[in-house]
C-alpha cells in the first residue's frame, strides 16, 4: 500500500537522511560562530514556520499574528526558566518544564483567541491577526514584572536535560551544544507535522482549506479543524519563540513585531506553502540570505560599505531582497522552494507526490 511510508519516494528518503546526518555534523564541522548562530536562528524560526504552514498552508487561514505567539512562548520560557535571582526574576524551573509549557501556554491562548478570529475570513482575518501583534506588544510592554518592560529581559533559563546540558555538551561551546537542542526540536516538529498532514486530522484541515461546505457535508467539523490548526500553530510559534529567545539571550517587546510576523509568512511563501519541508527551507532562505548578501556585499552595486558613503545600507538591501522574494515567488513560483526540492527528489521516476499548481 503506497503512501503509508513517511517519504514520498526512496530518493526523498535518502535525501532526508543525508540532510539529518549533515545537520548533526554541522556544529562539529563548522567552527564559525557566525554560521552557527545563523543556523541556530534558522532552526528556531523553522519550528514556527512549520507551525504557520499548518495553519496557512494546510488549513487556508491567513495569520499575521504569529509574532505575538512567539513572544508569549519566549516570555513563558523567561518567567519559568530564568534564575530566581534575576531582574525580572524567574522561577528557575528545569528545561523539561519550561520548554513544553512554552508551547502549551501559547497553544491554549490560541484556543481562547481562535473562536473569535476564525469567524473571520481572508482580508478580515489578516487585519485582525495584525491587531493581535499590536495589542500583544502593548501588553508585553506593560507587564514589566515578566517582560522587563521596554528595557527587556535577559533570557537565561537552565538548558540541562538530565545529564545533558545544552549550554555546553562535553567540550563544545554553547552555540554548538544548543544546536542539537534546537535542531532536535526542528526534527520532532517536522516529523509530527508530516504525520499530521498525512493522516485524518491533516486531511480534514486540507478539506477545510479546499472547500469548507463540502468538508462539512462529509462530516468534517470546520470549526474544530480551524481551531485545532490555530492552536497547534500558536503552540509551535511559542516553542519557536522560546528557542529564538534562548539563542538571542535578550529580548524586548519590540522583538515581537509585525516585521517578525511578516518574516514567517515570507518563510512559508518562499519555502513552499502547504508542504512540510517548506517551513524549514523557507527559514533557511530567510535566515541565510542576509549573511550571503553580507558576504558578497563588496561585489553588489549601489551598496554603501561605510556609513558615510551614499547608497543602500546592508539592512536596507536585505529588506528589499526580502520583499522582492515574497513578490517574486508568489508571482513566479507560488509553490516555493519545496516544489524545486520535490522535483529533484522525484526525478527517479517515482511520481507519488503530484505536482500541485497552486497551494491554496
Amino acid at each position, binding site marked *: 500500500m503506497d503512501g503509508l511510508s513517511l517519504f514520498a519516494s526512496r530518493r526523498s528518503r535518502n535525501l532526508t537522511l543525508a540532510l539529518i546526518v549533515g545537520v548533526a555534523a554541522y556544529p562539529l564541522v563548522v567552527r564559525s560562530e557566525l554560521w552557527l548562530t545563523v543556523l541556530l536562528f534558522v532552526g528556531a524560526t523553522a519550528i514556527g514556520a512549520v507551525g504557520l504552514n499548518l495553519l*496557512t498552508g494546510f488549513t*487556508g487561514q*491567513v495569520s499575521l499574528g504569529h509574532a505575538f505567539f512567539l513572544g508569549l512562548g519566549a516570555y513563558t520560557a523567561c518567567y519559568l526558566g530564568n534564575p530566581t535571582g534575576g531582574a525580572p526574576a524567574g522561577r528557575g524551573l528545569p528545561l523539561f518544564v519550561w520548554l513544553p509549557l512554552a508551547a502549551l501556554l501559547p497553544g491554549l491562548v490560541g484556543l481562547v483567541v481562535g473562536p*473569535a478570529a476564525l*469567524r*473571520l*475570513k*481572508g*482580508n*478580515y482575518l*489578516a*487585519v*485582525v491577526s*495584525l*491587531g493581535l501583534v*499590536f*495589542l500583544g*506588544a*502593548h501588553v508585553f*510592554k*506593560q507587564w514589566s514584572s515578566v517582560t522587563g518592560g521596554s528595557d527587556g529581559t535577559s533570557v537565561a533559563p537552565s538548558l540541562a536535560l538530565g545529564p545533558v546540558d545544552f549550554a555546553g555538551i562535553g567540550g563544545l561551546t554553547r552555540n554548538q551544544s544548543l544546536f542539537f537542542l534546537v535542531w532536535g526540536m526542528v526534527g520532532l516538529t517536522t516529523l509530527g507535522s508530516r504525520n499530521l498532514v498525512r493522516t485524518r486530522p491533516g486531511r480534514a484541515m486540507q478539506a477545510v482549506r479546499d472547500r469548507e461546505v463540502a468538508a462539512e457535508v462529509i462530516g468534517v467539523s470546520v470549526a474544530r479543524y480551524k481551531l485545532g490548526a490555530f492552536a497547534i500553530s500558536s503552540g509551535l510559534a511559542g516553542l519557536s519563540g522560546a528557542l529564538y529567545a534562548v539563542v538571542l539571550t535578550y529580548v524586548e517587546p519590540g522583538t515581537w513585531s*509585525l516585521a517578525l510576523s*511578516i518574516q514567517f*509568512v*515570507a518563510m512559508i*511563501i518562499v519555502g513552499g506553502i502547504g508542504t512540510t519541508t517548506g517551513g524549514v527551507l523557507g527559514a533557511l532562505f530567510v535566515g541565510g540570505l542576509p549573511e550571503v548578501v553580507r558576504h558578497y556585499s563588496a561585489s553588489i552595486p549601489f551598496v554603501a560599505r561605510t556609513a558615510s558613503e551614499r*547608497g*543602500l*545600507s546592508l539592512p*536596507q*538591501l536585505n*529588506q*528589499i531582497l*526580502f*520583499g*522582492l*522574494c*515574497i*513578490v517574486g515567488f*508568489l*508571482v513566479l513560483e*507560488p509553490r516555493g522552494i519545496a516544489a524545486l526540492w520535490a522535483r529533484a527528489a522525484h526525478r527517479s521516476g517515482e511520481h507519488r507526490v503530484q505536482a500541485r499548481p*497552486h497551494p*491554496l
Partner: protein
Amino acid sequence: MTKLVELIVSGTIRGALYALVALGFVVIYKATGVINFAQGGLLLIGTYLTYNAHVTWGLPFWPAVGLATALTALTGVAVERTVLRRMAGQPVFAVIMVTLGLLIVVQQVVPAIWGYDRLNLDDPWGVRRLSFGGIHVDLKDVWALAVVAVVLAALFAFFRYGRYGLAMRAMAIDQEAAMAQGISARRVVALSWGIAGAVATLAGVMLAAGSGGVDPAKDVIALAAFPAIILGGLDSPVGAVVGGLAIGLSQALTGGYQPDHAAFLGAGFDTVMPYVVMVLVLLARPCGLFGTRDVVRA
C-alpha cells in the same frame, strides 16, 4: 470642558486623515476584493515626490502637489500592471502578501533615496494656528479637513455618476456579470490603483504639512487606518469615513483621559486603542458597521 472640545477637534482631524487613507483601501478593495497593504508605500512615494517637486525643483506648492499626485497615481497603475495583474484569480492571501512585499520594498527604497532625516515640506501653512473662542487649531488641520471633504465628495460623485465608478460598483457586485456587460475589468482595476495612489498622496501631504514633517515612518498611519476600514466595512466609502472619525476620536479621547482615569491600562494605550475598538466591533458585527455581508466570505 475646553479639554473635551480640544480632544474632539484633534480627534476629528486625525480621524479625517485616517478616513483619507482608508478611502484608498476601499477603492482598491471595491475593484479587486483585496486589502492593499502597500497603501502606506504609495503614501510615502506621494509625500516624498511632493517634497521633491516643491523643495528640490522649486515648483509652487499646489502645482507640486498636483504633479506628485499624478505621478503617484501613475505609480499605482504601473504596479498594478506589472505585478498585481499577474495575481488575478489567485487566493486573497497570496495577493495580500504581494502587496505586503511591495510595501517592504518601498519602505527601504524611500530612505535609501531621501534618507531617514525628517524633512520640512515647506507648505504654505507652517505652524500657524487659528483660535476659535479659546480653542486652538493648526491652520493646516483646517485645510486637511477641507481636503478630506473635497476628496470624499469627488469619490462619491465618481462612484455614483462616473462611468468607471458605476463599473466598479458593478464589479464589486458580480465580476463575471460586469465583464459580460462589456466592462473592462482590467481598466477598472488599474483605475482603482490610480485613485488609491492619488488619495494616498493627498493624505501624506496633509500628514506631513506643518509640524508633521516628511519622514519614512509616516506610512504607519496606514496600519492605524486598518481598524477604520474594518470598523466601517471594507467596501463602504461612508464606512471608511465614519470608521476613520470613530478611530480618530476614540484615540484622542483615550489619549486625553485614560492616563488619569484608567492608568492601569498602561502608558501609550491610545496607540493601540484603534485595535481595541476594532476587536470589540468585530465581536459584535463580523462585517463591520457598514460592510456588506458578502465581504466576510472573501
